[in-house]
């Protein structure tokens, strides 16, 4: 059911919701960008509607709301382990269509690839998603090419338009909060065209893996991992055991985001690494996004949000790489 409110009414409803839920949304962090006096848009907990950045695409994806960058798996002593408590409150995560499609990819890995992940699951079960529409396409995204420009997996759709606010509440419990509004048909804004278009390679063969393109782009890569860290579908982590300085037998085990482009990702005890060459790392990442994942799960991993292209300090365009690879495979 859809409802219309004034922006003020919506703000006050939101403030009340934020008491019941932990709300995670894109926020402008003033001056926290890579360079001086440059902002960054990333996710954080918010308590009022005006903290949320509705216009700009977030530089970092929503995934940290479900998968913390650092997550304590357990605390340990010599002979015992203690698992930290999960989220105390239900959470609302504001995101766009591309990102909501990415949630399906996270679920795939963390819930349906072999074992169920205890930590992801307990947070995921407490999470509802609030869709932010896209009235216009961003420049780097290619969600239409990836079929991720639309979604109906949201629990709530929320749109601000001048002095008005609109919601569509699919979740019954959330809908309660909006019953006071004027009923009006509301449907999400989805884009139907992007300036960036990507044609995925067909007929990928073992020869594709040897494409010179991976060498070309690999040579430009500086292994910073930004493309992975901003990606809403990258889910890799590394385990770290931290031993407390004052009692080295006690500590905690954490999992921490990892990047297949950063040194050490494939290194085993003794120092042997399986992908020391950047071309191999580039191939590994790209193939995972547009081939391997699909081979295993039946749909592509990449949701075409374009963040990796936006963030790369070396101006490596993954979307262009894929298009060029597509042409090579014709």
């Amino acid at each position, binding site marked *: 059911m859809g409802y219309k409110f004034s922006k003020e009414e919506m703000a006050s409803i939101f403030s009340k919701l934020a008491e019941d839920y932990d709300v995670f949304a894109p926020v402008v962090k003033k001056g926290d960008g890579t360079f001086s006096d440059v902002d960054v848009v990333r996710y954080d907990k918010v308590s009022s509607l005006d903290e949320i950045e509705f216009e700009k695409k977030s530089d970092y994806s929503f995934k940290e709301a479900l998968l913390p960058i650092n997550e304590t*798996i*357990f605390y*340990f002593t010599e*002979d015992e*382990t203690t*698992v930290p408590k999960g989220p105390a409150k239900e959470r609302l995560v504001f995101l766009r269509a591309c990102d909501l499609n990415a949630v399906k990819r996270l679920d795939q*890995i*963390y819930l349906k*690839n*072999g*074992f*169920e*992940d*205890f*930590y992801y*699951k*307990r947070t995921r079960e407490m999470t509802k998603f609030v869709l932010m529409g896209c009235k216009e396409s961003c420049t780097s995204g290619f969600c239409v090419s990836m079929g991720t420009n639309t979604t109906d997996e949201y629990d709530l759709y929320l749109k601000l338009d001048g002095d008005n606010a609109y919601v569509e509440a699919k979740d019954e419990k959330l809908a309660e909060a909006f019953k006071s509004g004027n009923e009006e048909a509301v449907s999400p804004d989805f884009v139907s065209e992007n300036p960036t278009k990507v044609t995925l390679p067909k007929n990928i063969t*073992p020869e594709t*893996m040897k494409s010179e393109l991976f060498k070309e782009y690999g040579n430009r890569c500086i292994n910073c991992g930004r493309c992975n860290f901003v990606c809403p579908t990258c*889910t*890799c*982590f*590394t*385990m*770290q*055991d931290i*031993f407390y300085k004052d009692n*080295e*037998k006690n500590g905690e*085990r954490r*999992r921490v985001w*990892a990047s*297949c482009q950063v040194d050490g*990702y*494939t*290194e*085993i*005890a*003794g*120092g*042997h690494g*399986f*992908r020391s060459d950047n071309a*191999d790392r580039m*191939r*590994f990442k790209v*193939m*995972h996004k547009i081939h*391997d*994942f699909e*081979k*295993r799960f039946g749909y592509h991993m990449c949701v075409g949000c374009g963040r990796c292209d936006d963030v790369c300090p070396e101006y490596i365009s993954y979307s262009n790489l894929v298009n060029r690879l597509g042409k090579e495979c014709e």
Partner: protein
Amino acid sequence: MKNEYIPQLSEIKEVIKHTDLEYTFRMAFDGEVKPGQFFEISIPKYGEAPISVSGIGDGLVDFTIRRVGKVTDEVFENYVGDKLFIRGPYGNGFDINNYKGNEIVIIGGGTGVSPMRGVIQHFAKNPTDAVSTTVIAGFKSPDDVLFKKDFEEWSKTINVIKTVDNAPEEYDGPTGMVTKYIPDLKFQDIKNAVFICVGPPIMIKFTIMEIQKLGVADEQIWTSYERKMCCGLGKCGHCKMDDKYVCLDGPVFNYTEAKELFD
């Protein structure tokens, strides 16, 4: 819901020294384990490392650990009676039934012998389960040989070629790479042969090239991969190769699959 990340405490029952660098830890474990599977073992002050099972006993499981990297050093300072956190077993392991009734050739390099030890043991104890069983094991030097007693025992019932890359002049055993001994293998029917090959990546590559020269089909070759793993549960992503997760779909692969896997 079960939290797969939580390890259990396991007592070190026995420590067997093979070389200055390699030891086998016999640890308490109740549960089903297959050769070729692995456990994540927590090393005090360092962290977890995936270590393959090198032996399976009643309420016991063996881990043969080479003292490399920061992770595995610490284990060697633990002694009988101490406890370590372990979780597992993970991975598919070797299925003995895939090899029964065949002419089996098992080729291992260094610690690569460990995951196959259970398989070798089975056919050494039950030689009639196979038409024939041959083990070709390669080590760097006589001082690096693992499972010395096992080799003596095994050679009573199956063919064993234990070769070393470098040997002092007076050494009277076989020398050279494992690949040297492949062309001379005799088969009643090559179509009935199976090969299992585990070792460092470069050794696997050249061994399989040598095996293929015998006119063996890909289906007849098996291998096991060692990759970085942080979870063993198909989550951390480090061991992914193409569409496969070594921790879930491997570490044992038939070569029909393995040949498609790129690092």
